[in-house]
């Protein structure tokens, strides 16, 4: 009797993946085309993407198989909460173990802590829990729409999602060991790693003050369910308002440090030029004269009711979508029918909190032929979307106002 496990191990060995932690896409046969791909994506991206399902996931837009990078199709953004099985998947490195929740442990300590401790999943669940609805978005969401293109994962609109995250507060966990007064950062490490040991492991740090905020969590629930494997099972860090790069998946270690953490993924990656973006939240201990780590999300919106070029009946059409920012709160969403000359307020929908997607809708009368619709949002501190792209080498923070065409007949 050949067991499935043996077969998988054999296949894994054949693939020569380190540690035998193969990724298992291809559960459903790949389909040849993906509807509504943005025309602005690189042609090579447009040619290679397919809808494919990772285990436990619905078919998503596959950008790369290994490490797995899959984005969420537009139709799942018509509700302010994104279903777990449709939530985007993003990994930097390809050795991704299946974590056994019963054996999982979170180690907490570091030279900036007074002591050390390990937590089991049960330990975390016995602590007071907190829940926050928050947008998890990849820093490089919409990188594929950069002109000129920049190398990286060429995301369209769907490297993001919003979920209700429940877990223990990071602060409560850190308080169990005690943090020294001179600690400046918390270093976050997950169970996943590189294929070759010479590749820098994906490790990140956050400012100590950010870790101590009441909404920073180690979450073990996502929309009331355990986290999907590909979204960080059994627990991941949640830093509402900040880019997904800090939301460490499969978290296994929290380490307080008194010197800036200098790993590759801090000092050389996920950096934006100083002064180009109107960002409020700083990461002072990691700043240089020329660049700084990405921090909070910039205000942005997405039209979700229709894809670009959609056919509609002439007459009254309700256009709708979502808006979000770095956690200050959405103040307005406005729509323009005349290429941005005049703007009218859209109606804001259900408010799940300042870190969540905010739905909006707008009734318009579509004339026969081409109708253009633009949308833009502003938050309560006055940050806005931009009319033209702010270029930066790694392709982050693309919050250019979207222009959509509706073809009415």
């Amino acid at each position, binding site marked *: 009797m050949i067991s499935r496990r043996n077969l998988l191990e054999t296949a894994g060995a054949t693939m*020569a993946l380190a540690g035998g932690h193969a*990724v298992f896409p291809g559960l459903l046969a790949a389909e040849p085309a993906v509807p509504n791909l943005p025309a602005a994506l690189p042609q090579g991206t447009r040619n*290679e993407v397919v809808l*494919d399902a990772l285990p436990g996931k619905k078919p998503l837009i596959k950008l*790369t198989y290994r490490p797995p990078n899959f984005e969420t199709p537009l139709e799942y953004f018509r509700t302010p909460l994104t279903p777990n099985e449709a939530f985007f998947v993003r990994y930097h490195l390809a050795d991704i173990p299946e974590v056994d929740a019963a054996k999982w442990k979170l180690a907490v300590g570091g030279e900036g802590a007074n002591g050390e401790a390990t937590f089991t999943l049960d330990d975390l669940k016995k602590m007071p829990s907190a829940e926050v609805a928050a947008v998890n978005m990849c820093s490089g969401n919409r990188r594929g729409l950069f002109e000129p293109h920049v190398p990286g994962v060429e995301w369209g609109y769907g490297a993001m999602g919003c979920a209700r995250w429940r877990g223990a507060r990071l602060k409560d966990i850190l308080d169990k060991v005690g943090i020294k007064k001179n600690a400046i950062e918390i270093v976050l490490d997950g169970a996943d790693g590189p294929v*070759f040991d*010479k590749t820098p492991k994906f490790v990140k740090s956050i400012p100590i003050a950010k870790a101590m905020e009441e909404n920073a969590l180690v979450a073990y629930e996502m929309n009331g369910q355990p986290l999907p494997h590909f979204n960080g099972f059994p627990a991941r860090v949640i830093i509402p308002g900040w880019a997904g790069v800090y939301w460490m998946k499969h978290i296994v270690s929290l380490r307080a440090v008194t010197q800036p953490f200098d790993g590759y993924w801090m000092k050389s990656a996920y950096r934006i030029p100083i002064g180009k973006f109107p960002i409020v939240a700083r990461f002072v201990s990691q700043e240089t004269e020329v660049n700084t780590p990405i921090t909070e999300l910039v205000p942005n919106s997405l039209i979700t009711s229709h894809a670009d070029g959609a056919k509609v009946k002439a007459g009254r059409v309700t256009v709708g979508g979502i808006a979000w920012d770095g956690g200050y709160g959405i103040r307005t969403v406005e729509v323009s029918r005349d290429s941005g000359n005049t703007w009218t307020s859209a109606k804001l929908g259900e408010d799940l909190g300042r870190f969540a997607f905010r739905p909006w809708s707008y009734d318009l009368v579509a004339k026969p032929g081409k109708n253009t619709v633009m949308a833009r949002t502003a938050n309560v501190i006055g940050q806005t979307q931009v009319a033209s792209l702010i270029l930066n080498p790694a392709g982050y923070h693309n919050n250019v106002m979207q222009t959509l065409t509706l073809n009415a007949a």
Partner: protein
Amino acid sequence: MRKTVLTLLAALLSAAAFADEQPIDLKKAPGLDLVEGNCAACHSLDYVQMNSPFLNAAGWDAEVSKMIKLFGAPISDEDAKKIADYLKVNYGVN
């Protein structure tokens, strides 16, 4: 017996489909063997297609150099040049 063989065959096929990422066929040209033998050890080759065609020669040199110097890919200078040449010719722009 025949049924057993068929069942076993079905199990093998389904397991293979489950375990394998879909094969990525890059353009057949000199250097492809080195791309498949080196780059694919750490990542699927759809990364190459996805990042095309917009990198110029310097852009592809930078990507290959990044994989070796920053990500530790154990590739000789000679092979690195052949890999970069393959990427420039088949997935680059002037």
